[in-house]
């Protein structure tokens, strides 16, 4: 069988000195993981818009109360039910409080509660989930039973009871209540990821090298579990904001004169007929906050998901 010998250059020397490396243009341009994440995120116009809107709201919710001090709770009887003016674009309510300032303060409260409680949820959830997922066996079993018990009661029900009993109107109690009921979801998520990657080669390799458990968990496994956790947290912020608003609406959360989107809505109910706009601005702002957090979560999910199918 005659075959060309492809390893020796032609006698004519055409290939004398020809390099054997791969030509650069053959390689697809390399982008780092984070660059790809950013690219994918930027494609989500809604998510980007949400990020911007959220940023603006955050700025306003910090700036306005900082600049106006405790104006939000001061009731000036001269302005009872007054209409919109330059310093009060949304007018005043029935006890003379500047609604726009109150709205911003309420937003601030919502955002604080949202972010802090999610922080708690994320921390406890990662801790429990990673231990359960990594250790397996009876530790996993025990922790998951505990999670099951907490998950068996509807969140709102539990939170309601906790807040009602331990501190109606106390922001700290609300945050803690949301935190200690919500961590279960995060724990399940992290645990699932850990179970999945526990048998991955790179984890085995680390173990074989004698790397300690804590380091393996923190440095090698946790980053992989971060993606779904981050998405869950974004959506969790939305949930926390809704929960706080619902509690305040029902009278168990932040109470007057401290403003909350929820109690402003409750208050507005009496004015259905007289001043219907009062049910709109807190409601719309709340919807806006929640929507932005949700779209942000969606965008993050699509951006961080490594299983993106690119049809080429």
């Amino acid at each position, binding site marked *: 069988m005659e*075959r060309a010998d492809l390893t020796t250059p032609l006698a004519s020397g*055409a290939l004398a000195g020809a390099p054997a490396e*791969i030509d650069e*243009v053959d390689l697809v341009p390399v982008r780092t993981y984070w660059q790809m994440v950013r690219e994918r995120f930027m494609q989500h116009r809604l998510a980007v818009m949400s990020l911007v809107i959220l940023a603006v709201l955050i700025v306003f919710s910090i700036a306005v109360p900082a600049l106006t001090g405790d104006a939000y709770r001061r009731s000036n009887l001269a302005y009872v039910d007054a209409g919109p003016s330059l310093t009060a674009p949304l007018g005043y309510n029935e006890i003379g409080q500047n609604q726009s300032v109150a709205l911003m303060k309420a937003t601030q409260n919502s955002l604080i509660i949202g972010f802090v409680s999610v922080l708690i949820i994320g921390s406890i959830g990662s801790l429990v989930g990673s231990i359960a997922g990594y250790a397996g066996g009876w530790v996993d079993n025990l922790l998951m039973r505990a999670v099951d018990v907490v998950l068996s009661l509807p969140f709102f029900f539990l939170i309601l009871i906790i807040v009602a009993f331990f501190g109606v109107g106390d922001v700290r109690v609300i945050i803690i209540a949301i935190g200690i009921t919500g961590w279960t979801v995060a724990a399940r998520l992290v645990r699932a990821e850990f179970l999945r990657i526990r048998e991955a080669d790179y984890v085995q390799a680390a173990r074989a090298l004698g790397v300690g458990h804590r380091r393996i968990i923190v440095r090698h496994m946790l980053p992989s579990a971060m993606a779904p956790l981050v998405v869950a947290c974004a959506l969790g912020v939305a949930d926390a904001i809704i929960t706080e608003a619902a509690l305040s609406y029902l009278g168990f959360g932040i109470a007057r004169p401290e403003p909350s989107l929820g109690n402003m809505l409750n208050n507005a109910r009496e004015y259905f007929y007289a001043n219907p706009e009062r049910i709109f601005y807190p409601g719309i702002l709340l919807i806006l906050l929640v929507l932005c957090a949700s779209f942000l979560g969606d965008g993050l999910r699509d951006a961080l998901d490594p299983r993106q199918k690119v*049809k080429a």
Partner: protein
Amino acid sequence: MTGDNGRFATPGGDLLGIEDLRTYFYTRDGVVKAVDGVSFVIGNGRTLGLVGESGCGKSITALSVMRLIERPGRIETGAIRLGDLDLLALDEEQMRGVRGARISMIFQEPMTSLNPVFTCGDQISEAITVHESIGRTEASERTIEMLAQVGIPDAKRRAHEYPHQLSGGMRQRVMIAMALSTHPELLIADEPTTALDVTIQAQILELMKELRERNRMAIMLITHDLGVIAEMADDVVVMYAGKVVEQADAFTVFERSHHPYTRGLLASIPRLGVKRERLEVIRGVVPNPLNLPAGCLFKRRCAYAMAICDNPPPFREVADGHLSRCWLTPAGEPPSVGAEADPETAAAAAAELSMEA
């Protein structure tokens, strides 16, 4: 005389003719020319092996024949003829009449290619009843018959089982049964044995040979495994980066291959009993489809690359019924202009040579 429309010896006449098929994918990063000017012919009852590395366009060629290309892909131009019928001119309903009835296709992964919530028997019967108006009982009977034909023991019981209850080899047999239940003229098999282990592979190939005999069916066998080609194929088409680089009957391709790529593939097959220090490889990597080199697509990996290779080589006959896309003469020598020629002379010579072909 023969031009680009390759002609093997086809004693029984042509069943499927593909002429200058171009299927492009419009992606966000650019246009990927997955199939770029492919032409070949499958004779009645002949088995054609379509060989090439992953990503060379062989699967897309098959899917183009079936007209199963989806967004962002599109069949740009070309002609696909089944007997006298121009497949690209049919409307969707007519094409459905061809799919599964005159041309059947089986795929690589039998586990995911069968619907997990329907029984095997149901899925086979469905293939029959879609094309022929026969009753359920008759369809069932034919199903069981087919299952027996493909070598599944206890066919009657197995027909009521679900895909997950069968082993990989059996599932592929079910796929084959489903494909052949309508007695198609052409079977397209896309890597049918790649996902199976070696012993099962042999069984499936035997089965296909047997059925091929019995039904006098043509087969388009797509694979990257030259061993399978050697077993099954009458004719061979070698593809690289969306183009056909060599085609001939199987014997010629194995014994007297011309194109450096084909020869590289053959050289890289490890051989039992031969002592070597290192395996032969074709150096380099397949070109980035978004950034194809000018001229011959293989030049960067070719030991024979010359200046003239910066011009696209003609696809011409190097022997009777044997075509190759290369500047080398049929004897394997550099063309008359010489290997040393500078780019301009080479380009001029290229233009001249192309016109001759």
